């Protein structure tokens, strides 16, 4: 499983959605219902399972599924 698939499976687990249905344009709060407690889960799971550190500034920029994936796989 590559890093994108791992990240999508984490977002799917926390939002309760199917990973295959997670499109980049979906908004974490408005479309997936990721409120503050769930966002904490998401960030800490991403850090733990992918072995990286996400700063508060980077976390604040993550509005959509695409933003999460872009952070993990920068161009």
């Amino acid at each position, binding site marked *: 499983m590559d890093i994108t698939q791992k990240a999508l499976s984490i977002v799917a*687990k*926390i939002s*309760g959605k199917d990973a295959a249905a997670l499109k980049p344009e979906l908004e974490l709060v408005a479309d997936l219902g990721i409120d*503050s*407690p*769930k*966002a*904490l*889960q998401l*960030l*800490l799971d991403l850090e733990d399972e992918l072995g990286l550190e996400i700063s*508060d500034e980077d*976390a*604040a920029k993550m509005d959509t599924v695409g933003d999460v994936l872009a952070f993990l796989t920068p161009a």
Partner: protein
Amino acid sequence: MGLDKDSRHGSILISVAARLARWIMLALGWTWNTRVVKGQRHIEALLAEPRAVILSFWHNRIFLSGPFVYKNLLGKGLAITLLASQSRDGELVSRVCKRWGVNTVRGSASRGGLQAMRAIHRAIKRQGSSPIMIPDGPRGPLYHFKPGVVVLAQMSQAPILPYGIAARKFWSLKSWDRIVVPRPFTDVAVVIGEPQMVPRHLAGEELEQERQRLEKLLIDLTQQAEAAVGATDVARASAP
């Protein structure tokens, strides 16, 4: 005129109020006959082998809990972190806590929540500091255990140490939760529950059930403390 914490005048007033609040709380606490009715062994275990726990009690017990935490935990070397709201009241609480050597993080479940929760998570994991998390703070609903505290416990794998605390004679302020201010020389009872681990694998409905279980537990511990001193719950009695 409002008290603006960012103005020089406001900052001085808050500083003076913080000093006064600290001394009033300590002086009042010194007169109370405080008794741990149940669960003293959890405090002793924590002091014997310090580790991060999430201290939880209801918001309207904040005046009661200050001296209790100071005498029994902070004064005995346990590192404590407090989440204080970004409001003017939060500024006052933050200043009082700093004078007691408590690390404060500003934010709440509703404003600046994520950043504050991450800062508390870091304090637990990196400094081994025990956060005070008031599950129905800062603005209620009354006795509602908010999910943020449950998720913090789950993600940090630090146990929640819940406790109920009650005074026999007290004043009740006209705040949303009828905050309890114990009268001098009154009896105070503390009932400390078993440390509560929130399993890492819980999600969705299972996590909600865990939240509801913790809510009932904290209500029960508070009622046990009230029964021990023969007190009534003014907040619940006056609820619509």
